[in-house]
């Protein structure tokens, strides 16, 4: 069933992709092939392979329980939030929070998760910024 849904999704993606390809504006410089033809080829192969997946699905993968899916969703949210807040609060603070969260969810107890998070953040800061001179996001406190 998962494969069939995936195949349908792939097919819709192919339709959307080909439709978008028709929307590409042509410029006054052009070659005989143009910027649209290669995307059309890609879209066609995508549609065909999706159709085959719908018709001949593999065995059902083992999906995790809802709780585990929620876990993955939360981790994704934390990582996106990390990317968005990185410039506002600086590298060390954001990394400490995100790493602590991940470490906690991977099974550490809260206290050691926080210690691990802070150590990871400070460790990366020292190695990559202070020693190797990589530029990292600077927060309101200067790190």
């Amino acid at each position, binding site marked *: 069933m*998962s*494969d069939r849904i995936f195949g349908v999704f792939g097919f819709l993606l192919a339709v959307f*992709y080909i439709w*978008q*390809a028709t929307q*590409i*504006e*042509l*410029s006054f*410089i052009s*070659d*005989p*092939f*143009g*910027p649209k033809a*290669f*995307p059309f080829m*890609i879209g066609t*192969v*995508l549609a*065909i*392979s*999706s159709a*085959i*997946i719908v018709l*001949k699905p*593999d065995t059902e*993968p083992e*999906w995790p329980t809802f709780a*585990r899916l929620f*876990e*993955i969703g939360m*981790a*994704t949210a934390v*990582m*996106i939030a*990390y*990317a*968005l807040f*990185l410039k506002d609060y600086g*590298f060390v603070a954001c*990394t400490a929070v*995100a*790493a*602590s969260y*991940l*470490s906690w*969810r*991977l*099974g*550490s107890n809260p206290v050691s*998760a926080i210690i*691990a998070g802070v150590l*990871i953040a400070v*460790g*990366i800061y020292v190695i*990559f910024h202070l020693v*190797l001179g*990589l530029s*990292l996001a600077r927060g309101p406190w200067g790190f």
Partner: protein
Amino acid sequence: MDTLASLADGFAVALTWQNLMLALIGCFLGTIIGALPGLGPSNGVAILIPLAFTLGLPATPALILLTSVYYGAMYGGRISSILLNIPGDEPALMTTLDGHPMAKAGKAGEALAISGLASFIGAFFATWGLVFLAPQLVKVALLFGPAEYFALFVLAFATLGGIASRNQAKAALAAVIGLGIATIGVDGQTGVPRFSFGEVHLYDGIDFLVAIVGLFALSEVFIFLEHRAGSGADDKAVKVGRIVPPWKMVRETLPAMGRSTIFGFIAGVLPGAGASLGSFISYTFEKRISDRKGTFGKGDPRGVAAPEAGNNSAAGGALVPMLALGVPGSGTTAVLLAMLLALNITPGPLLFQQNPDVVWGLIAALFIGNIMLLAMNLPLVSLFVRVLLIPTRYLMPAVAMISFVGIYGISGSTFDLVVMVIFGVMGWVLRKLDVPLVPIILGVLLGDQMEKNLRRAMTIHDGDWTMLFNSWLAIGLWAFAIVGFVLPLIVGRYFRPKIADEAIAEGSDPD
């Protein structure tokens, strides 16, 4: 004798203090990365590329560092296979079959030593193979025009889908998803934006490093979150014992190593097959010819030597098409190609002519790295064993954060970080659905070149399609591509590692 003279020049490039130091660091880091469960050659190198890139190392030293990591990871993968029965990466899968029983019989040290020696022999002779075969391939590649290059790219995808994956439709789908991602951004030939939806960040296209680190490294973190691997290896640490194998054992296993080196190298050179296939073929073949007393699978040292020589030799063989043609055949070489492109080096025949110092410096570094790895792996193996004790609950957050640092370091853009997270989730879903990730990466990397060559061929011949099949070389490549894609469908799946069908493939490294 040109080749040997070039190689000598290569050694002159590689033998500086800085480069030796980088090779040493690379080998050390690589062995650790290979030994850690969940990290293997492709995602390990993927995480390190942006870092090597942002550190501003020139091309040759950066290459030396990262290929040392690649070879090191190939060595390191065996450590957790033997001691914990958990392959550190997919090529090391076959090593568990005889390596772990040896460890349980109290011969862990001997198994590690034999496999270290086998790795050395495999990699050493494969590097010689690379030295002699790559320049020959370059001569052929110089005859290629745009039409032949287009056919060659099709061939790479076709054999990757046909030989190395379980479901051709899914491999084809993965390849076109990658190619589709590559079309995002301003079209290089006419200057019109494609698929960028008015988003300024997308005009430059999606950086392949963002895609690679997301798909390979972050998706690994999600896999661990899903299974909550817990504390990993706490009390299972096995005693290593003596690390010098008896001479008799070495002599017994030498023929196995020799044969496996040859098989592994051939498997590595073929497009679409990688180190995993190399170790699989070597093991099964060795079992067929020398397992007379049924000792394979119960701790036969030859069963440890064969797959290790095979996978390290395949790792060297895989560099031949990657360097000479610019077409990688496996996940890890795809990552190495990404590294070259990030350093603004386009592999292929021209690389050998225009930047011989880069190519031969790299090859010399492989020889040096190999000897360092042998020296490092035999006496220091107990140090690496200790690395296995780091629980994943501390390791995985660090992996995720280092991935973010690397990508942020390249562009300083938080938009890229968000895209990387999206790729991470996508990688997880696709792995669950058993869609191979390597064709996606290959598509993202090669899409631009593939389209450029196709359009160049069309421009030369004024849009005449039949000119794609105009030369015998092109027809040969197309024929090989079709056979490589279709034949595995017909003759069943004899050529594919059966063991990889099991669920273990889901969480493992894509090479």
